């Protein structure tokens, strides 16, 4: 792996400095190869496992007798296993890989002693495996986003400490004088996460706070995993790959700065919006609502930044898989966040709280934004660490279309279903407030009617899930094929959707 001197020194001394930089990048890529590959392979494995649990849970919601006799697969456990597999298995493994690959490249710092990072990744995966096994066995803590039992969580903490330390060391010993925007986001995420996780584990699991203070800590933590870990990693990836693939600079450094700091200040107060109307003080609910609403600022600012960077180059979407996934993710980020800000408004929360609408929203964020961005990142990173191209453009195309259409159907379906559910659950009060006719007199709609009316939406959600599963399988096949097949030295073009003329020539 320490091929440090060889490539650069093998270059003709007359090589341009640009090419020297590229050679340096290839050394950096090579140093990240094994940890990145291990983490990404684990991530893809967890994606498949998480998808299986997703399908099981989704089927159970409209066909409750499906696998109904197996206690270890009861909905409450299968759904939890799904969440933990896709969050701590797929999403975090992918985050680690993308985060330190980006950090190494942007800091222009070779990753040293990468073998220890593999050890960290192994610990992390053992922890997640133990945790999910525990959930299925009935040891779940029943605290949302912290369900893994206490015999698994210390392993996660240890693994995280190693990965975090490594990324910071890589940054510290980097040669780059300028700290690029992606690096701010990654450093911030790495710092924020352990603080969130420790406070949550201590104040809810190990030394529980009294009463609903636990709930405040719980949702401060869980929402900040989304806002202060996954969002920064996703944005860091977009801020890197968008200009990188296009060969254009990010539109405005000043917008990046405003976007970063407004996210840092507002996002972490927003978590209380999960408790609107709940047994917590009114002022902290209002603070959460205000923060959720102020999130419009970083979201709009980032959207402008990304959009203005893309303007004039939308044609590249025809060719580049990375770009397609990244742009889909970036647009979804804007939509998910604006939707989230709207959901925090008390009168809209009155309708959508506790309904399937929230589930649609969460998948818009973690899947349509974060997961799609990770897919795009992986499509870019793998050829550079394996020095091989993706075997099949058809599989990439299948992957993109099934997951994109799948998640759009998913979100639209559950949003409609959730609103219907919420309106029915909250008649007659809502009907009175909205000036709607009281279809059921002044009595509340019987609960079973709300269940019946949402069944069709739950079924459509299962179909969209099957579509997304096809995409994941296509991705996994392509991934494994790429890893196992021998390097074909004849192939030097990237695997793209189409072959444009300008991509054949060297970069301008």
């Amino acid at each position, binding site marked *: 792996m320490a091929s440090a001197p060889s490539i650069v020194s093998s270059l003709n001394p007359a090589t341009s400095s640009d090419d020297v930089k590229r050679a340096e990048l290839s050394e950096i890529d090579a140093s990240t190869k094994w940890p990145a590959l291990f983490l990404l392979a684990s991530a893809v494995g967890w994606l498949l496992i998480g998808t299986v649990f997703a399908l099981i849970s989704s089927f159970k919601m409209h066909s*409750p007798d499906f696998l*109904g*006799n197996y206690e270890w697969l*009861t*909905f*409450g*456990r299968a*759904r939890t296993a799904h969440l933990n597999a896709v969050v701590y298995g797929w999403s975090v493994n992918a985050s680690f890989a993308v985060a330190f690959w980006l950090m190494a490249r942007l800091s222009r710092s070779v990753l040293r002693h990468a073998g220890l990072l593999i050890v960290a990744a192994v610990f992390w995966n053992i922890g997640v495996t133990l945790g999910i096994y525990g959930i299925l066995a*009935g040891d*779940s*803590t*029943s*605290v949302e986003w912290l369900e893994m039992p206490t015999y698994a969580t210390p392993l996660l903490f240890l693994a995280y400490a190693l990965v975090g330390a490594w990324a910071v060391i890589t940054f510290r010993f980097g040669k780059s*004088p300028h*700290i690029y925007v992606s690096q*701010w986001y990654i*450093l*911030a995420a790495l*710092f*924020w996460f352990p*603080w969130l996780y420790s*406070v949550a584990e201590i*104040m809810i699991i190990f030394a*529980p*706070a*009294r*009463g*609903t*203070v636990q*709930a*405040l800590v719980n949702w*401060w933590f869980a929402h*900040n995993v989304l806002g*202060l870990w996954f969002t920064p990693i996703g944005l860091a990836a977009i801020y890197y790959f968008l200009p990188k693939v296009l060969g254009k600079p990010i539109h405005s450094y000043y917008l990046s700065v405003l976007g970063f*700091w407004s996210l*840092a200040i507002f996002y*972490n*107060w927003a*978590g*209380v919006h*999960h*408790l609107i*109307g*709940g*047994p*917590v*003080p009114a002022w*902290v609910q209002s*603070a959460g609502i205000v923060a959720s609403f102020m999130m419009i600022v970083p979201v709009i600012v980032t959207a402008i930044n990304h959009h203005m960077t893309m303007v004039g180059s939308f044609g590249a979407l025809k060719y580049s898989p990375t770009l397609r996934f990244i742009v889909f993710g970036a647009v979804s980020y804007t939509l998910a966040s604006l939707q989230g800000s709207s959901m925090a408004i008390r009168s809209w929360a009155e309708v959508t709280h*506790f*309904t399937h609408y929230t*589930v649609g929203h969460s998948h818009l964020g973690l899947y349509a934004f974060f997961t799609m961005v990770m897919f795009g990142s992986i499509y870019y990173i793998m050829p550079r660490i394996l020095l091989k191209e993706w075997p099949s453009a058809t599989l990439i195309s299948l992957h993109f279309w099934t997951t994109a259409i799948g998640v759009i159907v998913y979100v639209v379906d559950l949003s409609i279903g959730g609103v219907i559910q919420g309106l029915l*659950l909250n*008649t*007659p*009060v*809502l009907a009175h407030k909205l000036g709607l006719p009281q279809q059921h007199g002044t009595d509340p709609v019987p*609960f*079973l009617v709300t*269940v019946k009316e949402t069944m069709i939406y739950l079924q459509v959600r299962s179909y969209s899930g099957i579509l997304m599963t096809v995409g994941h399988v296509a991705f996994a096949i392509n991934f494994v094929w790429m890893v196992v097949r021998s390097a074909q030295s004849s192939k030097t073009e990237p695997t793209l959707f189409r072959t444009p003329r300008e991509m054949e020539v060297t970069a301008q």
Partner: protein
Amino acid sequence: MNRAPLIFLGIFFALALSWVGIVLTNQIGYGSLQPVYDEDEGKAYPLQTPGLAARGKLVYEDLGCIYCHTQQVRRAGYGSDYERGWSGRDALSGSVARDYIRESRVLLGTMRTGPDLRNIGARQPDSTWQYLHLYDPQITSPGSNMPPFKFLFETRKIVGQPSPKAIQSKLPAKYQPPAGYEIVPNERGENLVAYMMSLKDTYAYPETKNVYVEPTPEAGKEEKK
């Protein structure tokens, strides 16, 4: 590189602000809320969860009931929780923080695929209904999407006297066990139902009056806003 310390400070204070505001301030503000002693009844509310019910709460947790059921009632006028009779007491406030102070694990929940359960013990006094519903929700609630929990019961040979806890006499024909067998809840099933029966917030603490009531222009108008 020299901007790094500044960035670090900013990142630190950003999270510190919300940690202080959301977590610390509220821990200080109501983190040591005490039960209220009612002299007329000679009890301190909220009541301690009785032994079997406490074990039943663990069953509730391990089966993941929170993913379909909430345990937080919203105030009158915000959603229809109040109209559905989900509140166990005669106050407009819905669930208050003090209702949860005895709980080492607070199970507020976030989804209402099923109804709110905070006061199910007050709303559903019949434990037989609970057993039938758990055995197969279709029995008591046709069309429900709650999964069956037959593994909280056991079918066993009747030895000597039939058990008073047996439920097969109340089950429809298609669930009947073979002759000479009875269906009884196992220990987890009994504990879970004991927990459900214990779920009631009936005491009206002083803070349950902290609800905005629109001033009525004349007497005779409805109380709830």
